[in-house]
C-alpha cells in the first residue's frame, strides 16, 4: 500500500489524524498492519485514522475511519461508509472491539461487534503478522437458537494470498437485506446457508475462486405473492480460474426440493439442474457448455455470448431433444394460453426445439413435434397422431408441415391430413391442403394468418381492418360431397339427407369472429341451399353466436319428412330463413317461411303428416267434416303448403299460406283433388321451446297437442 499523500500531526492536536488516499492490495489485515507499523500507534493513547478511498480490482472502500484508544489493551473501532464488491454496495459497516490486544506479532480481538445491514453480530479476529494470517469469526448476538457461524481465513505467506469463508447455518434472510433494491422487490423471508468459498490471488488481483454452497429452507416472495418460493433447497458448485486469456468458469445449480410460483408458472423441485461453463475474456462472457435439465420435461443445451458492458446478448443458441409434451404443455405452454381455446387442453408426445439468435440479429426457431396428441377437456376438438415440422425465421420464408392421423372437431371426424405450411415472421400461410371430412373432403386454398397488434391496426389504411388486433386469418376453398346424414349425426342434430358440397367463398377471422363473404352453396334433401351473410362469433367460446341468411330451393319434402319421421309429404318446397341467429346451436331469432315450390310435381300428404301439422295449427285445425275423412284415407291431395314463423324472445309468431278473414286463423295446407283436406292454424303465438317439445312428443306418440301462448 502506497499512500499518495500523508499528513501527520502529533501533539499539536488532541487526536492524531492520518488522511491518505490509498491504493490498497489487501484489505483489513493490511490496514491493521499499517496501524501497527505507524510510529505513533504504540506511543499514542488515542488514534484517529481516516482512509478516504481504497481501491482494489476486487473491492473498494469509501471513507474508512479507524479509531484506536487505550494501551496496551486498546479499544478498536472501524467505520466504513461504503464497501463495494462488484456492483454490490454495503453502507455503514462498523467494527468495534474492546479490548483488542496489540503486539508487534499480532492483533487479537476476542470480543468484538460487527454491525452490518442493520444487524449486530458477535465477532472475533486474530491477525498474526508472523504467520501472515488473518482469522475472523462472526456469530449472531444470540446463539441459543442458531449455531450460525461465519469463519473467514486469509493468509498471505506466499506470494499468492488465499482466503476461505466457511458458512455454517448462515442466515440467508440477513444476506437478503444486503441485496440491491429492484423495481419489483422480492424479499427473502428465510434461508439457511452452509458452504465454503475459496479465493486466491496475487498482488494484482483475484486469480481463482470456488464456491460450494447449500441453501435450504429458502422462502421468498414479493408483496403481491405472484412471485414466491417456499421450502426450497439449492446446491451451488462453482469454480473459476484466471489464466493468461481470461477467466475459465464452471458452475452447477441443483434444485432438489421446494416449490416456486412465478406468475403464471408453477414448478416444484426435483432434480432440476442448471450447469454452465465458459470463459470471460475481452469484455464478453462466453457460455459454451450450458445444460438445463427440467425434471419431467427434458434436457436442453444452450450457449451464448454476452457483452458485459451493455449486458446484451451477441448470440445465443438453445437446443432440446425429446421434451415430454405432457409436462411441457401443462407447466409452461398452458399457463400462457389460459384465455384461449387451449386453456383446457391436454397434450402428449415429444418435441424438439432449436432456437438460434445469431450475431446478424435474425433469430430462427425450429420446432419438431413427434407422435403427439391434443385433447380438449370439453370435447370440442381432439387430434391424434400429430406430427409437425415448424420452422420460423424473422426475415426468411420457411417451409414446414403439419400432419395428423385423425382428428375430431366439434364432433366431426377428420381423416389423415397433411398440411404444408410456410412461415415468415408473424405470418403463416397454407398454399393448398386437403382435409378429409367424413366421406368427403374440404380443400383449403390461400390460407394466410398473421398477428396484428393494436398499434399497427390503428395505423392501417384498410378501413376493414381498423380496430382489429390479435391473430387474423383468411382462406377460400372447396367442399367435395359430404354426406349430410353423417354430418348431422356427427353434430348430434336433427338428421338431414343429401350432400354438402360447393365452393367456400372467402372466409375471414378477426376479433374472435369468423365471417364468410359471398355465398356458400350446398345440396340437401335433393334441393339447393344457399347460405349468405354467415358470421360466427367466438367459435370455440362458451357461447358461440352464428348469424346467417339461408335459402333452400326445391327441397324434396318426401326426404325431409322421412328424416324427421313426420309422416309423408310428397312435393317440393322452398324455405327461407332470414336473420337467423343461433347461440350454442340453438335458434334464438329468425324469420322463416316454407312455401310450395313452383311446378307440377305430385303433391300428396299422409294422414300422419296431417296429424302432425295439426299440432302446428292447434285447436280444431280441420273442420268436423274433414275430421271424419281423416280416418278414412291414408293420403290426401294438396295444392299448396305454407308456414311461416317469426321467432323473437322465445315466441314464434306464426302464419300460413294466407290469413283467413273470418278470424285470426291462417291456412297451412290448401287441399286439392280427391280426397282433399284443408288445414288451418289458429295459434298465432307459440312458445318456441314448448312448440319443439310438444311436436317432438307428438311425433313420437302420434298424438299431437299444441297449445297457444297466452
Amino acid at each position: 500500500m502506497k499512500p499518495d499523500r500523508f499528513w501527520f500531526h502529533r501533539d499539536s492536536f488532541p487526536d492524531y489524524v492520518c488522511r491518505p488516499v490509498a491504493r490498497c492490495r489487501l484489505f483489513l489485515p493490511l490496514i491493521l498492519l499499517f496501524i501497527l507499523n505507524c510510529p505513533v500507534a504504540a506511543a499514542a493513547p488515542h488514534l484517529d485514522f481516516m482512509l478516504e478511498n481504497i481501491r482494489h480490482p476486487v473491492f473498494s472502500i469509501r471513507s474508512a475511519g479507524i479509531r484506536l484508544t487505550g494501551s496496551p489493551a486498546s479499544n478498536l473501532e472501524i467505520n466504513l461508509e461504503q464497501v463495494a464488491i462488484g456492483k454490490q454496495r454495503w453502507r455503514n459497516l462498523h467494527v468495534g472491539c474492546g479490548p483488542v490486544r496489540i503486539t508487534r506479532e499480532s492483533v487479537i480481538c476476542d470480543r468484538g461487534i460487527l454491525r452490518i445491514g442493520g444487524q449486530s453480530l458477535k465477532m472475533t479476529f486474530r491477525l498474526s503478522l508472523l504467520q501472515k494470517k488473518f482469522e475472523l469469526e462472526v456469530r449472531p448476538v444470540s446463539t441459543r437458537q442458531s449455531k450460525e457461524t461465519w469463519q473467514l481465513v486469509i493468509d498471505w505467506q506466499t506470494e499468492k494470498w488465499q482466503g476461505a469463508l466457511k458458512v455454517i447455518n448462515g442466515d440467508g434472510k440477513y444476506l437478503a437485506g444486503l441485496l440491491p433494491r429492484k423495481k419489483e422487490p422480492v424479499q427473502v423471508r428465510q434461508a439457511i446457508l452452509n458452504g465454503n468459498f475459496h479465493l486466491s490471488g496475487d498482488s494484482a488481483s483475484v486469480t481463482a475462486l470456488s464456491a460450494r454452497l447449500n441453501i435450504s429452507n429458502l422462502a421468498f416472495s414479493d408483496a403481491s405473492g405472484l412471485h414466491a418460493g417456499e421450502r426450497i433447497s439449492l446446491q451451488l458448485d462453482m469454480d473459476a480460474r484466471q489464466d493468461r486469456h481470461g477467466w475459465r468458469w464452471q458452475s452447477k445449480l441443483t434444485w432438489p426440493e421446494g416449490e416456486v410460483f412465478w406468475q403464471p408458472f408453477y414448478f416444484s423441485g426435483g432434480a432440476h439442474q442448471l450447469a454452465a461453463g465458459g470463459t470471460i475474456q475481452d469484455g464478453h462472457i462466453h457460455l459454451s457448455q450450458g445444460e438445463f435439465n427440467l425434471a419431467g420435461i427434458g434436457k436442453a443445451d444452450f450457449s451464448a455470448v454476452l457483452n458485459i458492458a451493455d449486458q446484451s446478448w451477441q448470440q445465443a443458441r438453445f437446443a432440446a431433444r425429446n421434451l415430454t409434451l405432457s409436462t411441457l404443455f401443462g407447466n409452461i405452454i398452458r399457463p400462457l394460453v389460459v384465455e384461449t381455446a387451449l386453456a383446457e387442453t391436454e397434450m402428449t408426445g415429444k418435441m424438439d426445439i432449436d432456437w438460434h439468435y445469431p450475431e446478424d440479429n435474425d433469430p430462427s426457431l425450429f420446432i419438431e413435434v413427434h407422435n403427439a396428441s391434443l385433447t380438449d377437456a370439453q370435447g370440442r376438438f381432439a387430434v391424434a397422431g400429430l406430427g409437425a415440422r415448424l420452422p420460423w425465421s424473422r426475415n426468411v420464408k420457411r417451409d414446414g408441415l403439419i400432419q395428423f392421423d385423425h382428428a375430431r372437431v366439434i364432433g366431426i371426424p377428420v381423416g389423415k391430413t397433411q398440411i404444408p405450411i410456410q412461415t415468415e415472421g408473424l405470418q403463416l400461410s397454407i398454399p393448398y391442403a386437403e382435409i378429409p371430412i367424413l366421406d368427403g373432403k374440404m380443400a383449403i386454398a390461400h390460407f394466410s394468418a398473421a398477428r396484428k397488434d393494436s398499434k399497427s391496426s390503428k395505423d392501417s389504411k384498410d378501413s376493414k381492418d381498423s380496430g382489429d388486433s390479435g391473430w387474423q386469418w383468411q382462406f377460400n376453398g372447396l367442399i367435395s360431397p359430404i354426406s349430410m346424414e353423417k354430418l348431422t349425426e356427427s353434430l348430434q342434430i336433427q338428421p338431414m339427407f343429401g350432400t354438402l358440397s360447393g365452393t367456400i367463398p372467402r372466409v375471414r377471422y378477426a376479433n374472435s369472429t369468423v365471417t364468410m363473404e359471398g355465398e356458400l352453396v350446398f345440396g340437401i334433401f335433393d334441393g339447393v341451399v344457399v347460405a349468405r351473410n354467415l358470421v360466427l362469433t367466438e367459435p370455440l367460446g362458451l357461447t358461440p353466436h352464428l348469424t346467417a341468411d339461408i335459402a333452400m330451393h326445391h327441397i324434396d319434402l318426401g326426404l325431409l319428412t322421412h328424416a324427421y319421421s313426420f309422416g309423408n309429404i310428397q312435393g317440393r318446397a322452398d324455405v327461407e330463413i332470414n336473420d337467423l341467429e343461433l347461440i350454442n346451436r340453438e335458434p334464438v331469432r329468425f324469420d322463416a317461411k316454407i312455401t310450395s315450390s313452383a311446378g307440377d310435381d305430385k303433391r300428396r300428404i299422409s294422414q300422419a303428416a296431417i296429424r302432425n301439422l295439426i299440432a302446428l295449427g292447434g285447436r280444431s285445425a280441420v273442420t268436423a267434416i274433414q275430421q271424419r275423412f281423416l280416418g278414412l284415407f291414408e293420403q290426401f291431395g294438396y295444392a299448396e303448403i305454407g308456414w311461416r314463423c317469426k321467432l323473437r324472445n322465445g315466441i314464434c309468431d306464426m302464419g300460413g299460406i294466407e290469413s283467413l278473414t273470418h278470424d285470426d286463423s291462417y291456412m297451412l295446407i290448401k287441399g286439392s283433388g280427391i280426397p282433399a283436406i284443408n288445414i288451418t292454424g289458429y295459434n298465432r303465438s307459440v312458445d318456441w321451446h314448448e312448440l319443439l317439445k310438444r311436436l317432438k312428443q307428438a311425433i313420437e306418440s302420434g298424438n299431437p297437442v299444441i297449445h297457444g301462448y297466452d
Partner: protein
Amino acid sequence: MCKQLINFLMLTALILFMCAGTATAVDFEANTPAVTRLKQNMQQRHSQLAPFYDSGAVGLTRDGLVALRDANAVPLSSRQSVNSLVTAENQDRNALYREIALANNHPEWEEDIRLTFAQRWTASARSGWWYQQGNGSWQKK
C-alpha cells in the same frame, strides 16, 4: 340559498328518475341460451371460488369482475389454479354482460349492465369477502 337547494333537489330527482328509468328498461333476467349456459357455468365454478373469497385471496372488483387480490393467502401450489379460475370467471362475466345487453337488443348497454352487476355482486357478497371501492381500494365486507 333556497334556489340552490331547489336546484339540488331537482337534479337529485332527475338522476333518480334516470336511474329508475334505466333499471326498469334493462331486463337483467334475460333468459337466452347463452345467458343460461353462462350462469350454469358460473354457478358450477362458484363452489371452487368461494373458499378464496372467504380467505380474501380473491375479491370482487368495481367493474364487475373478480381479481386475485392477495395471492399470499393461497398455498403456492394452488396459485396457478386460482389464476385459471379467476381468468375463466372473468371470461364468463364479461360474456354475461355482453349477452344480457344483446338479449335486450342494446349492445351499447354492456358497460351499464356491468356496473349494475358490480353493485349486485358486492351487495350479495358474504360478510368477510373483499370488494373494490369506487376509488380502487379494497374493503372487507
